[in-house]
């Protein structure tokens, strides 16, 4: 469990050179197979991304006439057309997604942290029951929840609002699960006990002592939930009808649907998809060194 705190384990040191050096050709071959396999995997995974980067530079006629991986000349025009489309509704979608994912993930990380901490550090009646019931939420297919959620929110007159997309996504059972695992590993019981001896209230112990210890794990939880909300499609699809409130996934989908009738919109869809991928890819490149995916394997071992 102590490995939780280490973001990336060091490569194993002290491999035995003697045994391998006796057979140099074999050694080379073994090093080659993994490298080539991984390169092929990387090419497969980057292919659609490379395609959209290039396709976004093409003007409408170029898209259908020139070789796919030949850059075009229309990128600036495409971005201008996309920004002009329905008075810049595209950028509104991006801003909406940032709001849904940013605020939603922040709130849901707070809920996960406080619940995970309580479930990890206290012994109380009903602890396992509460935990198991919360976890069962993971198994619920989204549409099972979303359809009645829509009907209930409609009764409360809350559909087609920002709230209708934000609220149902705050509780993430998986986030609570990860937070519990992390709190159990990162917050020692005697530190909590020492806080009590000093007369601190339970809330103060949580915010001043435990929470700072949980921060690295909570960064991971935040990112998971940010990605989950950013990628969500079904819930906003069901809840929203006013396209000014759409997140980017739903916006691009409606653009594609219209594009089926007017192929001129295809260049907008492609440019839009390219620009929509950028923020998350950038986020990944910046934070991939910070977030501890060890949390996941730690979760498996316990």
């Amino acid at each position, binding site marked *: 469990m102590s490995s939780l705190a280490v973001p990336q384990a060091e490569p194993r040191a002290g491999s035995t050179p003697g045994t391998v050096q006796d057979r140099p050709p074999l050694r080379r071959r073994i090093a080659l197979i993994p490298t080539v396999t991984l390169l092929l995997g990387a090419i497969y*995974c980057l292919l659609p991304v490379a395609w959209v980067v290039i396709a976004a530079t093409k003007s409408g006629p170029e898209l259908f006439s020139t070789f796919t991986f030949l850059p075009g000349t229309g990128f600036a025009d495409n971005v201008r057309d996309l920004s002009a489309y329905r008075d810049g509704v595209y950028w509104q979608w991006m801003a909406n997604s940032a709001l849904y994912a940013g605020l939603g993930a922040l709130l849901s990380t707070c809920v996960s942290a406080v619940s995970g901490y309580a479930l990890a550090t206290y012994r109380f009646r009903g602890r396992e029951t509460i935990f198991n019931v919360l976890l069962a939420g993971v198994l619920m297919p989204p549409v099972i929840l979303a359809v009645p959620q829509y009907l209930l929110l409609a009764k409360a007159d809350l559909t087609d609002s920002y709230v209708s997309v934000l609220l149902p996504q705050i509780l993430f059972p998986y986030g609570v699960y990860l937070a519990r695992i992390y709190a159990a590993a990162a917050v020692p019981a005697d530190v909590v006990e020492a806080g009590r001896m000093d007369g601190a209230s339970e809330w103060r112990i949580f915010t001043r002592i435990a929470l700072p210890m949980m921060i690295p794990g909570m960064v991971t939880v935040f990112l998971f939930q940010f990605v989950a909300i950013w990628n969500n499609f079904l819930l906003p699809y069901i809840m929203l009808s006013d396209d000014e409130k759409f997140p980017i996934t739903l916006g691009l989908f409606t653009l594609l649907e219209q594009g089926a009738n007017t192929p001129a919109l295809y260049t907008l869809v492609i440019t839009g998809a390219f620009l929509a991928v950028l923020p998350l890819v950038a*986020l990944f490149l910046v934070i991939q060194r910070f977030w501890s995916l060890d949390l996941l394997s730690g979760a498996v071992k316990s």
Partner: protein
Amino acid sequence: MKSTARRQSYGAKGAPYAFLVPATVLFALFFALPIGYALWLSFRKVRVSGLGLGSGARREVWAGLENYTDALSDSELLHGALRVLGYGCIVVPVMLGLALLFALMLDSEKVRLAPVTRLAIFLPYAVPGVVAALLWGFLYLPDVSPFYFVLDRLGMPQPDLLDGGPLYLALSNIAVWGGTGFNMIVIYTSLQAIPAEVYEAAKLDGATPLQIALRIKIPMVAPSLVLTFFFSIIATLQVYNEPTTLKPLTNSVSTTWSPLMKVYRDAFGEGDIYGAAAQAVIIAFATLLLSFGFLRAANRRQKQEAAR
């Protein structure tokens, strides 16, 4: 002294419940209540009296199991379930097989470019399912796809990827592309947790890297494999975004391609929320049954392994 201790222990007793209030309230409002409401709706129906005009002509009444018998005898729902089953039989083994393969390769000694390729393979996780389906959808379109361009130049036949059997492969490919990296990271991190001494001992015994992978690494990451299997099965049963996104690009994805798509269509397209609720309950039940069945089988297997 004694009284403070008692007061504090009371505080500690109430504290966890207080801490769990936000989660419990949200669960009650956005999980329990909707599930209960869906159950209630699934036993209701609308009875239209007379011509169905005027207030009181459409009344909601108790339907008993009618919606359920309708749903279970609905061939469209059955076909959707079979389609998703076929799709899952491609996605889950291929995705996890690749994830395990890449994780083992990353973990092998002397591998070059590991950090770059690891990041590249993980990258699709950052791409929303809708955008992934959209990108691949264009790559499947003969007019813009590089694959068709190459096939054309080579004078080879150009299959329609968005129809019939190839459609399954086309959809599976999107899921494999999006999910392999995430599962690879889960397996890879648990591979990294295996202590080096285990390998030292195996090497002294003359084990080859392949033997180490098959006899030591794979059994030791079995719990991660179980977890990734579990989440993959659930995700597969709930497939919705990808076929929905491909729909505008082809005529062969129907509005009822997957069971969840049928629930959506019945609830919002046809306005039959009662029938849709019954179908939703059936799908949820099937998901629970499958997941728990799988977990139990996995647990039993692990206990057997441990006993040996």
